[in-house]
């Protein structure tokens, strides 16, 4: 029996009427305590019936699962995993294993936020920067890329995973900077971490 179905409302209404009839018919034969209990039962059933009708109309809780607070989604707060290159200096040349597949003019340069080393429990947003020279963006890990004609969004698809292994960076809060044709590619052509967050939690 569903929470917003007619059968449940009909059942609640029928129980209300039944309780009211029993209360009235047995009124003279009962003591004040049982009468009070009967009145309270009728009132409670009345409120439940009205509540079920309103809930069917407004769908606040469309199912028993929803009423229990079960959303089918588990919120996970994982502590940040240390990056393999966490001990590097504030800026360095990045040479990950998958570098050759990106077809860049030279290995990327990474610039870390001032407080990167002081906050080991924090993951940082990322700016993939195609500007020459890269723009200064405080509080974000900057990955400065020099693309060639063969550098495509598809070729860069492995970059987020490589960066997440080497540094403490967020999964979703990525930005792409630059005026060339590559940064202007539509979002759906970009690697997953550059696409909008589609799953909860972030």
């Amino acid at each position: 029996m569903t929470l917003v179905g007619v059968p449940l409302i009909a059942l609640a209404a029928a129980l209300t009427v039944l309780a009211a009839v029993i209360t009235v018919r047995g009124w003279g034969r009962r003591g004040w305590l049982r009468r009070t209990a009967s009145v309270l039962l009728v009132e409670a059933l009345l409120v439940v019936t009205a509540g079920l009708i309103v809930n069917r109309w407004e769908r606040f809780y469309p199912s028993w699962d929803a009423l229990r607070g079960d959303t089918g989604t588990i919120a996970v707060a994982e502590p940040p995993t240390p990056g393999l290159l966490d001990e590097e200096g504030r800026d360095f040349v990045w040479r990950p294993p998958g570098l050759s597949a990106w077809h860049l003019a030279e290995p990327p340069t990474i610039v870390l936020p001032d407080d990167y080393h002081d906050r080991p429990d924090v993951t940082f947003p990322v700016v993939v920067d195609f500007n020459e020279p890269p723009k200064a963006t405080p509080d974000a890990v900057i990955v400065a890329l020099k693309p060639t004609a063969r550098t495509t969004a598809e070729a860069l698809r492995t970059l987020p995973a490589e960066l997440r292994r080497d540094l403490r960076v967020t999964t979703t809060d990525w930005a792409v900077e630059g005026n060339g044709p590559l940064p202007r590619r539509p979002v759906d052509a970009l690697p997953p971490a550059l696409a909008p967050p589609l799953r909860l939690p972030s």
Partner: protein
Amino acid sequence: MSTVLSLAAVLLTAVLLATVWNRSRPVARTGLAVLSLISVAAAAGVQVNRLTEIFPSVVKDDPGGSQLRMVTVPGALTLPMYVYLPAAYNTGSDRYPVITAFHGFPGTPEFWLRDLDVQSVLDREIAAGRMAPTVVLFPSQTPDPLRDTECTDMRDGPQAETYLTVDVPAYAKAHFRVRPDAAGWGLTGYSAGAFCAINLLLRHPDKYAAAASLSGYAAPGIDIDDGSQNTTNNPLWRLRNLPQPPVALWLGWAGDDLESAHESQELAASARTPLEVTTAVVKRGGHNSTVWRLMEAPAFDWLSARLARPLTVA
């Protein structure tokens, strides 16, 4: 307290009914029955109010690093507003991005503070670096708790849109260190407040850069008296009939919240470049605070990523 009092009234009237009914005249019996019904309705009303915070009572103030202030914003309407100031606001001199968060109907900004525990959520997201320090405004949207404005300018009624998009920003800019430009201003809301966020973003892309909708709708739930609920105050109509603005929209819903799911999907399907749409779906959960508690942190994170960062003042 009101819960205890209202339940005591229900109990008292029930005992009275049970003890004096047989000795009473018809008039007294009628009075008793009416009193009983009133007490039951009052007890139910107290619980509904507790859930929706229609009539605000106690102000929650968490004296952590962040601050929650209550101010009164004058203008087309004169209404109270809560202001969240991030911990960094106390010590820094930056001008911060702003998110205006709308409540549902019926409801008040207190729902954000109490049921959605927004101060703790914002503190946590900012401290974790998932969100930039941001000033968050929680304005009231109607002068009458029982009148739904849907954040619009009603003909011969409250000028809620003007109040929320002109007076509230002007007050914030005059009284707090906030970014003055549209790139630093965003909107969010749940239920009817989510409609407000979507509608005001599309109507005022010169004032806001992004909006996040938690179980929102593609149309207002009211008649605005000028027919605009079917046209210019109808986001779906706007997306289908007007040029789309270069702003960003996050649409979240629960899969079993059928109306919101259907309308949010219609909005997402109607979006075209340069409007950017992101969708987020909770498998199930309905149309209530459980779902919104799950959505609020990702929505704030997403908004923050699309708003300009705090502006360093030299």
